[in-house]
């Protein structure tokens, strides 16, 4: 159990700056997910915390202790790798007990700890098998078992679920969450999958080009993205972002996108002047159809033409065109039946609309 702190951590490989300097405080018992597109430096950050990668400058603290010069084995962190990195010549039992054996613990202690971890992870029947005789999900569990037997201060996960099929991934996601609720060990989890990030994290850290774009709870980063990148990256289908102009007319404030007019509720975009260029972000799930538009004010309604519809069962993804020119992706309830070519009434939750500065792409309050 420990908190982790990164202070102005910089990583360069030769002349290439992978991480230009990040600050991050991870609280004790917190589940933090680092998410970003590939090459954003998230794995590098994880490896720096593990001590597998040196840092060019800055400080990393684990439990209040500066660990820049501490070797990986003395940091008391455990890591689960994408390809599990199980020792192929050892049985499951030996794999899980290896770190304890290296620490010089007695045979009885190792046996107790391994048995306990195997019980939690339901691996007891497989203890004498080799990794090659296990399925992907079981290997994944062994890798987790290897991490938990040592009761480390910090768990590090490097895309641990990306080699599993979709169903197993969902199941393991649940188990990971349960395991964290039970063990409460501080966890840093790296993934490129925003669904994993949303479902697992206490707080999400969104990275791009080695820079932190936003740190926040899943709801915060979803509803209040700090910039257009975060807005596009989090959420599936991604946020609709349209280029428009901010207008103030007769005391009413709105964004003009071509022929369409999106009203801006009071308190939003206060710093914007009339005629300022702006990016309007609309979440697909803030577009409503069918009965649910009744709850929205009349002036937030319009008509749109359905171009394509993807029925997923629980919901449907629709591509719609409003005012004959603006294409939007909408996520509506599965009960709503919409056929391509149909003109339907739609409603927008404009109070959830996000505004971004087109120059800096930062969110405008």
């Amino acid at each position, binding site marked *: 159990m420990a908190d982790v702190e990164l202070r102005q951590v910089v990583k360069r490989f030769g002349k290439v700056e992978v991480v230009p300097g990040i600050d991050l405080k991870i609280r004790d018992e917190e589940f933090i997910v680092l998410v970003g597109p590939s090459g954003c430096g998230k794995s590098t950050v994880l*490896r720096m915390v593990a001590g597998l990668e040196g840092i060019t400058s800055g400080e990393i603290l684990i439990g209040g202790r500066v660990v820049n010069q501490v070797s990986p*084995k003395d940091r008391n962190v455990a890591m689960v790798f994408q390809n599990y990195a199980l*020792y192929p*010549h050892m049985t499951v039992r030996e794999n899980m007990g290896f770190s304890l054996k*290296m620490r010089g613990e007695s045979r009885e202690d190792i046996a107790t700890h391994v048995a306990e971890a195997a019980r939690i992870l339901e691996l007891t029947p497989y203890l004498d098998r080799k990794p*090659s005789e296990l399925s992907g999900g079981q290997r994944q569990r062994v890798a987790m078992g*290897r991490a938990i037997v040592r009761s480390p201060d910090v768990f590090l996960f490097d895309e641990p679920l990306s080699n599993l099929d979709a169903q197993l991934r969902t199941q393991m996601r649940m188990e990971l969450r349960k395991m964290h609720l039970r063990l409460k060990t501080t966890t840093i989890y790296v993934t490129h999958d925003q669904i994993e990030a949303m479902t697992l994290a206490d707080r999400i850290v969104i990275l791009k080009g080695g820079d932190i774009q936003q740190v926040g709870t899943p709801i915060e980063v979803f509803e209040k993205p700090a910039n257009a990148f975060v807005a596009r990256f989090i959420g599936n289908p991604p946020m609709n972002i349209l280029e428009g102009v901010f207008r103030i007319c007769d005391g009413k404030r709105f964004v003009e996108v071509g022929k369409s007019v999106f009203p801006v509720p009071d308190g939003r975009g206060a710093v914007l002047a009339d005629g300022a260029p702006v990016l309007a972000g609309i979440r697909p799930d803030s577009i409503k159809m069918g009965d649910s538009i009744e709850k929205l004010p009349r002036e937030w309604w319009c008509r749109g033409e359905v171009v394509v519809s993807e029925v997923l069962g629980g919901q449907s993804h629709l591509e719609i065109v409003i005012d004959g020119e603006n294409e939007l992706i909408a996520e509506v309830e599965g009960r709503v039946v919409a056929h391509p070519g149909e003109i339907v009434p739609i409603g927008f939750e404009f109070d959830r609309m996000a505004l971004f500065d087109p120059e800096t792409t930062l969110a405008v309050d």
Partner: protein
Amino acid sequence: MVLIGVFVYGFIGNTVWTSMTDWGGSGSLALDPEKHFIGLDNYVDLFTGFLSGGFRQDLVNAVYYSLMLLGGAVGLGMFIAILLDRKPWGEGFLRTVFLYPMSLSFIVSGTIWRWLLAPQGGVNVLPTYAGLKPLHFDWLSSTGAVLVFNWQHLFSVLLYVAAFFMILLGLWGMRHDPRKAIRRWLVPGIVVGAATWLFGGLLPDALFMEEEHGFNLATLGIIIATIWQYSGYTMALYLAGFNGISQDLRDAAMLDGAGEVGYYRHVAIPMLKPITISAVIILSHISLKMFDLIFAMTGPDNAETGHPALTMYLTTFRANDFARGAAIAVVLFLVAATFIIPYLVSQYKQRRRG
């Protein structure tokens, strides 16, 4: 298939047949030499004949030679591979340097090492560069021998060796599964050892007269030369193996607290067991076939450094005793088979299981 059948298995059969005849002596080169079937007489003579002591020494030489070559080349090759695996500066260059001896012909390296190990030059004068007295060790012509045993007691010696290895295996197995180790190896090992010590006198003598064989020091030079030539090869095998181990596994071992030594000891080297086995097989059959290096270093007629393959050549083509030569060849073939067949069987079993 037909060609392999004729040129490999047909000729093996022909050799076995020849080894059971009396083809040799005067008239053996006649166009149609007289051959008579004499059964296993040639073999009996090789192992017990009064005049075949040279062959028995050759066999002993071959055993010591194989063991030391295996230990030396595998150990040294692994050591260099571990050093290079740390990715030192100039790794690619060093790798070529270490592998280079392999590309030399044995005749060439034999000649080089003969010069290096000459009594008044090469290695022996090295200390003089540091102001010390030169060495006087006769690398290739020493007549000394260590670990001498009497061929008469061959059976008891073999039993002692077997008991020693069983006890060793038992002690090693104690760490994993003490009960099984004691039952399977330790107790039988001690029993065999004690029984040989108590009742060894009852074992039949392998020979009717005393005949001493040992590890001839003169073969040391040859062993050094072969290790020099082959450690680069084992290094290449191990280096390829080490490079094939994923970085994640190494990282995992580091996080598990293995450290560099622990990583190689517990993870990398056990994982490369198949490579070790193939290195042992390849080196042991090379050591059994060793001919040209010895020919170049000490000449064909140096009894101290004799080797079965060399003797086979001399018996067959110089003494024209084709039948005896064939018998030596068959003995060599059987010895090689004892190395390779267990390997093939275990491979086959593994494939069946996997």
